[in-house]
């Protein structure tokens, strides 16, 4: 156990020494890895913020029910009674056409236009909060409501939420795609860096082998080297994303306040940050392992 720890400690020290021994190569590799990883990490940051924004901005989904223009008071009361009795309707609020007209007249600029109209162009309407706001349940409820008498138009207010949801799904797929592509890029960068290290350390590898070194012993410093490259590259990516977040925070807050929203751009979450660093280190390790394995089979 202690010999095992000792050997891992030695391998880690050797890997660190090799990183420091070629500072220019190391910095260039870190920059390449960092920029590559910053893209999916930044995408994830933006996506998380968009999700947050959507969740805060979306009101409880509702259904708007517009009656025919010709519907009289009795018809309105009839619909109201039916809505109250419907098990899928949590609540229904009547917005009478006279009320709408009065509100529109009061609003700046529209008053004169409304005044010029020969008769009230507005419908009696109900705003319905469904008992179950799952998209399918709402779809079904809307279909049922369309069958009521004197109904002009039924509108699902959840439509835009679903559109946003679909857009976010595209965003998520995009981030995933970037992650796969640039993760493969990271493996390629470490593969190549470690290949050069292996080639320049060939004499040492050969001698170590003749002196009784196992494959694991020879592989280990290179794997640590790859993992460190990945980890530090991940850190560069994290810093790039954090810098971008800071940079964008003020303008975003300004825009949000113009929309009377208290939205503040959030940095990459702790979980996402950890996943970024751990993933980068693991991919670096993988790239190094593949590189050394290829060297072993080339022999």
């Amino acid at each position, binding site marked *: 156990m202690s*010999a095992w720890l000792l050997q891992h400690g030695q391998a880690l020290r050797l890997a660190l020494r090799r990183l420091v021994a070629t500072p220019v190569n190391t910095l260039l590799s870190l920059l390449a890895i960092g920029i590559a990883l910053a893209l999916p990490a930044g995408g994830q940051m933006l996506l998380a913020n968009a999700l947050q924004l959507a969740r805060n901005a979306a009101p409880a989904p509702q259904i708007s029910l517009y009656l025919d223009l010709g519907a009289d008071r009795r018809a309105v009361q009839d619909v109201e009674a039916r809505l109250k009795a419907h098990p899928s309707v949590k609540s229904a609020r009547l917005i009478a056409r006279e009320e709408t007209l009065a509100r529109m007249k009061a609003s700046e600029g529209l008053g004169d236009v409304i005044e010029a109209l020969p008769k009230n162009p507005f419908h009696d309407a109900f705003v319905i909060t469904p008992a179950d706001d799952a998209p399918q349940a709402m779809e079904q409820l809307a279909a049922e409501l369309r069958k009521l008498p004197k109904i002009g138009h039924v509108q699902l207010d959840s439509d835009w939420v679903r559109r946003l949801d679909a857009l976010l799904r595209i965003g998520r797929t995009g981030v995933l795609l970037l992650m796969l592509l640039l993760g493969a890029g990271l493996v390629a960068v470490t593969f190549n860096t470690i290949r050069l290290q292996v080639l320049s350390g060939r004499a040492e590898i050969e001698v170590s082998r003749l002196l*009784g*070194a196992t494959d694991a012993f020879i592989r280990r410093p290179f794997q640590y080297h790859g993992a460190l490259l990945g980890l530090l590259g991940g850190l560069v990516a994290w810093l790039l994303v954090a810098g971008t977040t800071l940079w964008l925070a003020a303008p975003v807050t300004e825009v949000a306040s113009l929309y009377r929203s208290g939205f503040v751009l959030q940095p990459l979450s702790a979980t996402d940050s950890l996943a970024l660093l751990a993933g980068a280190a693991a991919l670096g390790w993988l790239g190094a392992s593949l590189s050394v394995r290829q060297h072993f089979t080339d022999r």
Partner: protein
Amino acid sequence: MIRFDRASKRYPPGIDALADVSFEIGQGELVTLSGHSGAGKSTLLKLIAGIERPTGGAVLVNGQNVGSLKRGAIPYLRRNLGLVFQDQKLLFDRSVFDNVMLPLSITGFPAAEAKRRVQAALDKVGLLAREKAMPIMLSGGEQQRLAIARAVVGRPNLLLADEPTAHLDAATAADVARVFLEFREVGVTVLIATYDDRLFGAPRRLTLDHGRLAA
């Protein structure tokens, strides 16, 4: 200790480096291996260390059949051997001390104990004062002794050397040979491929001729 049982090594396309070689070396023996250039001396040593595998017959070291060892077991065989190579294979990017340290790092020796052992090995070959030097600063004879120190630092019970006194002047060669004799004194089995076996006293001698053991 070492037993060759009708061992042979054929390189493609059908060149016999060793053919039908049988002999036995006991614990604590010092044996020299002589023969013309290309007679198969290096190949024979490589078979013992598992660097090459026999194409026929068997090579046994400490009772283990080297030819049938799995790839993963070869490193552990080599840890019981001290190898001195014809071209020495020193690492010129690190100090004398670190060169001798390498075998102990490989086996995962605790640092303090390893340091003592390295110094003892360097002392044995008369290089303790040069432990901080780089190998390039050493003379030919010193480099050869450094290679020996690295071979014995793991305290192997079998020491193999390929032409350890080649390219050395007579006095230096005698010096190096004396180091081997001292290891024999403490019970280490020593097998040396050499042109000049008079340096090693009057040892038992194996002579190879075109890959076959001469009588």
